[in-house]
């Protein structure tokens, strides 16, 4: 979604400078939540203050909100049909492949030193072995990563 936002805001409307857009993205990535919503909040705020951020966030959420409501409202009854169920089952399995792909891509980029492997392993063990809430895996690995890992240019 961020390339689309970049094109719309930087190239087409010329509302903000390229460098500002990327500093917003870097903050939007560190704060929890969907990146698109965070970017919308930050840019809306810098362009038009509080009302700008409200409008930008609503503008990001509402289209998908209505698309999903439409799907849920009109298409949910069809999910029972064997062919539709088979299609969705195939899609759901593909998501497993997509998760593995994301693990591969991010792993290749992030796991550069032994400390990174340790941090990641601790995160996985917290959730997978000790069966804690996944959020604890995220918190443990984040804190450990901050504390244990030396400076690394990503």
């Amino acid at each position: 979604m961020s390339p689309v936002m970049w094109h719309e805001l930087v190239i087409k409307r010329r509302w903000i400078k390229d460098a500002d857009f990327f500093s917003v993205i870097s903050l939007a990535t560190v704060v929890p939540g969907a990146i698109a919503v965070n970017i919308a909040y930050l840019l809306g705020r810098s362009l038009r203050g509080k009302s700008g951020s409200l409008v930008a966030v609503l503008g990001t959420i509402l289209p998908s909100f209505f698309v999903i409501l439409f799907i849920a409202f009109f298409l949910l009854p069809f999910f029972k049909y064997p062919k539709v169920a088979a299609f969705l089952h195939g899609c759901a399995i593909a998501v497993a492949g997509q998760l593995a792909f994301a693990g591969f891509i991010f792993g290749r980029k992030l796991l550069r030193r032994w400390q990174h492997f340790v941090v990641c392993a601790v995160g996985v063990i917290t959730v997978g072995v000790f069966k804690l809430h996944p959020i604890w895996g995220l918190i443990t690995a984040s804190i450990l990563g901050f504390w244990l890992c030396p400076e690394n240019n990503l």
Partner: protein
Amino acid sequence: MQMLFKLFMSFALIGLGAYGGGLVTIPLIQYELVASRHWMEFDEMARILAIAQMTPGPIAINAATFTGFRLNGILGAMLATTAVVLPSILILITVVPWVEKFKDNRRASRIGQGVHLGVLSLIFYAVWSYGHAAIERWLDLVIAAGAFLFLIVFEGKVHPIIAILICGLIGMFVF
């Protein structure tokens, strides 16, 4: 009423953990909706996630709207969607005034790196927990591995949606 409160809390928690891309929300959603609250079976959640992936907009928000609607109609959809974005908005409201000092700070980049590793560990976990639940037969494994290889081979050239759609079409013929 209690149900709505629980729905709100669940999605607020999911929103709190939803860093970056959105794939990391999958283990959180699975834990909250299936393992912890037993609101739906894994299969139903997986279908909702697949649709959330294929529809435009962030996965976490799409999944929140859909699940909220499924559990409690329009009211549920509105509540879950609000809940999923609220934590990040509140954090941004608190953090932004500080950010001018924070920007380009080495500490900020180290926090970012820690969070990235946390996200990565949850994605590794999700490959196992989601994969374990979604893949029941050899055929499923073959399709998942096919999607993985397809994405690797065409890395950056095709949108992941293409792989999901192809697997859906294959599914129509084989299941």
